């Protein structure tokens, strides 16, 4: 499908080429010929494609359930103007802007994205985006390894477990070791363990997430930041809930040199996990180690302002095995969506959205912790999610909530065996008072059961 060729076209073209048939064009040695019947569904007309896929979409009952899921992917309001603009064919069907003269619009949009990320994180520079938050952390760690040549990474256990797993995948390839820091009683990274670890000069980087996986606002303490500086360890901040950047002190303010994260919250659909959009920002000293595309502002031969891909000597298509990363594709279209989102909500909107996340999540926490048998596990200050201890296997409680039409959150046991009775719950600006009441009522039913012997 989607081919315009008539039989007459094909005949004329074959004649011009001097080949008898399409099969002749595709001739290969016998040893390479295809050996199997292809097992692919027969071609469908477009209306049946739509019918079949719509039926599958309708099976995903979770998409419109009452939900308190977060943990790295968030449900936020998406203004319709985003789709109107981002789905314009010029943006959708362009490729990497190698030819700057016919790509000024996209290049400028990426320059604006880079600026937004700098303004939000307090960093000097940002790249054109990477695959997602987890790969941003892995690439940020590689930047630190390339900066100081060390082969160990220190990471807080309060960093998203998926991000740590991906970091491990990458580090296995590079033969880099990872050490993890424990979580303190308030849900933040244990600063005394951190201080002890930073007495060593073996670590390329220390990675801290804020808000961390438990929702708690986290950072290097001033003393830890001093220790990192003294030991030559690069502080990396991880942000998985980008809306928090509208409220919280910037990672730059506590000494981060590299800030990596996920910008899905800026208008990108949840879409069962992707595509999302990772960002990497840093201080100027790491500029030539940053991976992926960078857009710069310059002039053309008529002295007009112009934008272009720049500092390409870092990249794989020039440097091959000596490149800073193998990355080729960025997440341009998702970065465009995030840029349009930030332009639409602006300073006032982002402040309000961040404020409503703070407000609704406190409303949720109050309601849940008033249910008998439910307690907040940590008392550290949180942004829009927090951990609830239900004093029963959390997986069971979540199944029972699901039977009542509610997705109550993420069971922590799959990542932290010691928190098998805990649920990570999230509220955003879209969470309503009646949804919170429904959860509290359902929780009352499912947690108020006699203890099993």
């Amino acid at each position, binding site marked *: 499908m989607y081919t315009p060729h008539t039989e007459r076209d094909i005949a004329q073209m074959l004649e011009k080429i001097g080949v008898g048939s399409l099969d002749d064009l595709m001739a290969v040695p016998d040893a390479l010929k295809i050996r199997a019947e292809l097992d692919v569904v027969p071609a469908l007309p477009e209306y049946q494609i739509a019918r079949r896929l719509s039926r599958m979409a309708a099976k995903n009952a979770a*998409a419109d359930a009452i939900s308190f899921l977060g943990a790295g992917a968030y449900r936020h309001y998406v203004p319709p103007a985003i789709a109107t603009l981002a789905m314009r064919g010029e943006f959708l069907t362009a490729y990497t802007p190698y030819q700057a003269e016919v790509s000024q619009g996209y290049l400028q949009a990426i320059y604006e994205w880079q600026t937004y990320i700098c303004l939000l994180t307090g960093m000097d520079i940002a790249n054109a985006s990477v*695959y997602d938050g987890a790969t941003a952390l892995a690439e940020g760690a590689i930047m630190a390894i390339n900066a100081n040549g060390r082969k160990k990474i220190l990471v807080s256990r309060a960093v998203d477990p998926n991000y740590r797993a991906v970091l491990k995948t990458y580090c296995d390839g590079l033969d880099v070791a990872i050490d993890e820091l424990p979580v303190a009683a308030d849900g933040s990274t244990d600063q005394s363990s951190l201080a002890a670890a930073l007495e060593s000069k073996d670590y390329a980087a220390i990675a801290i997430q804020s808000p961390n996986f438990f929702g708690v606002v986290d950072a290097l303490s001033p003393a830890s930041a001093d220790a990192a500086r003294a030991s030559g360890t690069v502080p990396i901040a991880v942000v998985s809930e980008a809306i928090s950047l509208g409220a919280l002190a910037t990672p730059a303010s506590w000494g981060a040199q590299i800030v990596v994260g996920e910008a899905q919250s800026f208008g990108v659909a949840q879409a069962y*996990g992707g595509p999302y959009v990772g960002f990497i920002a840093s201080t100027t000293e790491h500029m030539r180690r940053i991976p992926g595309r960078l857009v710069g502002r310059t002039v053309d031969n008529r002295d007009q302002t112009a934008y272009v891909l720049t500092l390409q000597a870092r990249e794989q298509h020039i440097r091959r095995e000596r490149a800073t990363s193998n990355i080729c*594709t960025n997440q341009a279209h998702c970065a465009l969506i995030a840029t349009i989102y930030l*332009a639409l909500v*602006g300073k006032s909107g982002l402040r309000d959205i961040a404020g409503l996340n703070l407000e609704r999540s406190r409303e949720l926490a109050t309601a849940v912790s008033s249910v008998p048998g439910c307690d907040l596990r940590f008392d550290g200050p949180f942004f829009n999610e927090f951990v609830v201890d239900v004093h029963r296997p959390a997986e069971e409680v979540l199944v029972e909530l699901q039977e009542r039409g509610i997705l109550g959150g993420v069971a922590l046991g799959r990542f932290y065996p010691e928190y098998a009775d805990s649920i990570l719950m999230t509220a955003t600006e879209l969470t309503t008072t009646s949804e919170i009441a429904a959860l509290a009522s359902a929780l009352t039913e499912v947690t108020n059961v006699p203890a099993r012997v």
Partner: protein
Amino acid sequence: MSPHASEPLIFDIGEEGRANGYVEPSRPHVEFLPKALLRDDLPLPDNTELDVVRHFTRLSHRTFGIDLGFYPLGSCTMKYNPRVNDQMANLPGFRDLHPYAPDGLSQGALQVMYELERSLASLFGMAAFSLNPSAGAHAELAALLIAKKYFRDNGRSQRDKVIVPDTAHGTNPASAAMCGFKVVSIPSDARGRVDVDALKAAVGPDTAVCMMTNPNTLGLFEDRVHEITAAVHAAGGLMYYDGANGNAIMGNVRPGDMGFDLMHLNTHKTFTIPHGGGGAGHGPVGVAAHLVDYLPTPVVRAVPKQGADPGLAPSDRLTFSLDFDRPKSIGPMRSFWSNFAHAVRALAYIYANGAEGLKRVSQLAVLNANYIRVGIKDVLETPYDEICRHEFVASAQELKKANGVRALDIAKALLDRGYMAPTIYFPLIVPECLMIEPTETESKETLDTFVAALRDIVATAKADPQSLFDAPVNTVVGRVDETRAARQPDLRWRPPA
């Protein structure tokens, strides 16, 4: 407004206080968190929705995509992106589904992933795919991590060399380096194929993986690939297939049949996912049976559904789940399971074609490339003068010698005539290289006018080379000062002091 006028930055447009009313005003943050944890300032512009709509609409007018014209960018497969694919990806049941949604309430999404994975495995002759990697280079990395772990588990960690032909994409050696492998580059022979004798001489007990693209980046089919796979396998190494050129082979040959153990696909190229200005991509990684346990997590598992109506389609009679419990796996490559919205698009495209349709797609992609090749070969050198696959390379070397006109100048002249330029200066072994890939979705008339434009540019290069050095002149900006961009990096706007 003239399209030539520059568009201001979004930061120079707004005024503070122009709220759009998407949400209600919130209470001050300090009511919820101590002041020390809060930021002092949020230096973003406030813009009206109208200003934002105009700004990005104008930026779109300054951006060239397939929807505006022919986009023969070699190695990128810039084919038409059917709109039904986007509509399906944006169905609320897919779009609003959280990645931690329980398996039982996500059966449709899992079915999409399962059907796509099974279709790709059959089309390319692999035992299984993982839809986890985010793009081609990401899948290459996954494949090399699989190889590394496979050798480590089998006590053969001494295998530390990756063999890469000199025509390979830059991502191949860069991915190898990210796994700690040393790269051995193999030259091409006079026919533009891997020099098989040089490759056989390079293979040995330290060989981990040989990475190949077939057809290669010159658009030529590696017709001795079975000899190469035999030699690498005899030495105990693994064969990796770079699927960037998958659009040339569907229904014709399969990497599995050629003897490859590992491969990736750029589904965003071959399976009509919009490239979106350079991503998001989608890069499934496929493996032969002996490597299935090493695939990145998660993979979709299917079991027969109890009491399913036998009249239903086969995949409607299954129950699906995400399987994370795979002890030999290299682990996850990304935060969540897959670039799922793209899996929907790729599956919609497979539905539209079926196996026979996909075979036809590849045939017509090859037909179109050869049609352009024979249309220009008397005016532009084609260093490998034979039937090509879905793309071919031409060279401006003779023009450069005679008239000083380079591939870059031809590229810029094409922009002036309303075309995207081909890929230039790649592969590196052909001087003044133009790599042209038309794809199958372009009509004979489009190809005819493109050939005429290229021929006209070559004639102009001889008669009036200066006019090509000045090109482009019909675009919103002229040639961009890349040297200044690199020497005085200006990577962001800064607020006025």
